[in-house]
């Protein structure tokens, strides 16, 4: 019954896969609404128990499939509202454990392009994002690695800097601090990897992440390489052969490649695909994530 925490990857999927998302340097123009669905498939067999890399015959491969609705509306050219809602399905390929599926967390963010400086051959922009997420169903946080998530309400503060050459090449860097509420279990006592508590409430450590991407964006093509580092600010390791627990320390480093294409034949349509791989982690699965999505932009206000 070894497991890994997986839900961070889930939390990460939007980061890895959406254009005009919270971590990038793009904005929808005023009155535009970009929406669509993204499907992702994430799987791991090996995981890190503390810093020990291992697999587990009682789990085999853990697969998470997610179908996420995405929407991004331009309130102004500088202020966007971004909404995401994933439906998730988790399964283990070996062992007896029952899979889980359901709506996970609704995420709503306000992205504000608070600074912009144009140079002769380039542009620098800075963004602040305030993101709020909360569970949309009564899924259990006490069933890792098959829980849909932590069942916490989160508030993330993000700063993003983006530098883009007129030639199309860009570099983007983003960092966020995420405050997480406590979570509740269906049981009245638990061990969090360090101490024993007579409570059904679990104190959840906060999270910090850094996201860096370099790529090319011009005409119908966007392509980028990404690096993500996410660390739990607290929490403890899995015990040896121990059950994973919602508040464990869960760190990972992930690399990903993303392509987005706007087929010239269909105006306002965007296709996107990405692949990601966890290169290092702690109390996390070493997952490979594939994603594909279709987005369409409605323009309620003609470009000025």
């Amino acid at each position, binding site marked *: *019954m070894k497991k890994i925490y997986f839900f961070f990857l889930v939390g990460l999927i939007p980061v890895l896969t959406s254009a005009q998302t919270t971590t990038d340097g793009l904005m929808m123009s005023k009155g535009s609404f970009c929406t669509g669905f993204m499907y992702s498939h994430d799987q791991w067999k090996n995981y890190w128990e503390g810093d020990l890399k*291992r697999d587990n*015959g*009682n789990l085999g491969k853990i697969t998470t499939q997610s179908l996420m609705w995405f929407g991004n509306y331009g309130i*102004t050219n*500088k*202020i966007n509202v971004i909404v995401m809602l994933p439906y998730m399905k988790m399964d283990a390929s*070996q*062992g*007896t*454990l*029952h*899979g889980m599926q359901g709506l996970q967390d609704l995420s709503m963010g*306000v992205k*504000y392009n*608070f600074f912009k400086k144009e140079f002769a051959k380039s542009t620098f922009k800075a963004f*602040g994002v*305030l993101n*709020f997420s909360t569970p949309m169903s*009564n*899924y*259990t946080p*006490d*069933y890792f690695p098959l829980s849909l998530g932590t069942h916490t309400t989160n*508030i993330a*503060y993000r700063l993003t800097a983006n530098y883009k050459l007129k030639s199309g090449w860009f570099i983007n860097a983003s960092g966020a601090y995420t*405050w997480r*509420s*406590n979570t509740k*279990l*269906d*049981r*009245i*006592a*638990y*061990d969090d990897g360090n*101490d*024993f*508590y*007579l*409570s*059904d*409430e*679990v*104190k*959840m450590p906060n999270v910090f992440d850094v996201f860096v991407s370099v790529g090319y964006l011009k005409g119908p093509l966007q392509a980028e390489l990404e690096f993500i580092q996410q660390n739990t600010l607290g929490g403890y390791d899995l*015990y*040896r*052969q*121990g*059950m994973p*627990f919602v508040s464990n320390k869960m760190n990972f480093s992930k690399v990903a490649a993303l392509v987005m294409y706007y087929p010239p034949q269909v105006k306002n349509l965007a296709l996107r695909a990405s692949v990601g791989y966890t290169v290092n982690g702690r109390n996390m699965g070493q997952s490979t994530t594939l994603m594909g999505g279709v987005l369409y932009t409605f323009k309620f206000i003609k470009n000025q």
Partner: protein
Amino acid sequence: MKSFRFLGIILLSFTLILMLPVSCNKDIELFEQLTPLEPTNLDADAETWLSVNNDATDVTLAKITTAAETSTPKVFDPANDAASVGNINSDAYKAELASIKDLQSKLTNDQKKIIEYWSGGGVLRWNQIIRGLVARYNLPPAPKADGTYPIPDAENPFADPNFPFANPPYASRAYSYVSAAQYEALKAAWHYMYLYDRESPYKNDSGVQSLMPKTDLPSYPSHDAVLSGVTAEMLKLLFPAAVEEITLKAAEQRNAALWSGRASSSDIAKGLALGKSVAALFTNRARNDRMGNAIGTKAQWQALADTAIAHGEKPWISLETPNRPPMLPFFGLRKTGVSTGVKAWILKDADIIANRPVAPPLTSSGEMKSETDEVKYYATHLTRERLAIVHKWADGAGTYTPPGHWNDIAAEYIRDANYSEVRAARAFALLNIALHDAAIACWDTKYFYFNPRPCQLDQSIKTGTGVPNFPAFTSGHSTFSGSAATVLSFLFPGDTEYFMAQAKEASDSRLFGAIHYRADIEMGLAHGKVVGGFTVNFALTDGADDN
């Protein structure tokens, strides 16, 4: 201008939301808070309450006093030391009082917190601590590269795997040894306290403050120190890798007794010595209760399967990958030529055999097919409500086990009853000897029949919690819960309905989670109630409720 206002609104919202997490602190609500114990009855006659006494290895008050009064040096020598102990004007005792006054004048906040912590009652505190130890050590060994599993080694407890693997049978035995030893030690403490009848320092010297509730309980030997000594010694035997934590807690408890003005240093020294001597008697019982034979050998495991096959049954196999040896197959099994099982507290071997549940349906029968189909129904209809029940009672790896869960349930009733320490110890002792005997009776049944789990008979069945690595018939949760609810209903008859409902829910949770058949849970629950009844029968005549 307009964008300026917008900026203002955004900044304001940011600020407000930024402040939200800062103002929301993450302190969690803890259950089972203890307030300073003020017992409604001191139970001055506790020394007359009967001990469990089935054979020569059981520990009675007579054995304890004999050991304490014939050891070298003697812990107690009432014929010769009563006068000196009783002389509260001796220089030695005055020096002890002076030392307490000095300590009390310099108490730090941390020391005051320690006093407050232990004033909630030593028996309740230790029960909480033990539950934490069980949860911490309830971890199955990880498989080796060759697919075999290492066995935890009591002589090398810090290694991987840690010793012990505090699985349900181990845990039930641990809870019972600690509780039984605490109970007998406190009865002996009561015996000597009323024999010497020396009062607490705060009564003997008005300059000594009482930082815990005042009682008329004599203080030589200090019952807190007795409890610290007996508990620490038992826990070091049962959880040797936790020696540091155990030793520190025990020392804290003695310090709390001293700093609070409840006991002097000689009260404490004698209490500690008595506690340790009681632990030595129980340790001797533990070393001879046949726990060492509970794991068995590969050939013995195969023989269990062969026996099942000979009866026309499909034998149990481990559902783990790689296959894990069965959990403590000879912990309970009473079978001539195969195993005599671990010694029970109350049940005799004949009782265990006579009350063993009748055989479940044959694995090849139509009845078993329909039972499996019912499990399949629950597996494919795992509602959130049923999953919550499954997880409430899962009590699997990394938890304090079902016996720990029933200690958890009992603790708040015992707290609210304002029992004296010795009566609280009796309540936990009755509960935990019943749970231990339930473990033995259930493990006897499981390995007598060696029946497969539902997902062995139908591999399409998926479970809402981990499948325990031992045979299905009968359900351990059901047996534990039946026995515990029976004992708690005896202790707190006004809440019988609640305890029985909880036991039924615990039992049902195993069917809802698709890890047990209906026969396992219904027979287990009924069997547990029978086992609990043996403990209740003992308690009815132990003299504790005679007033």
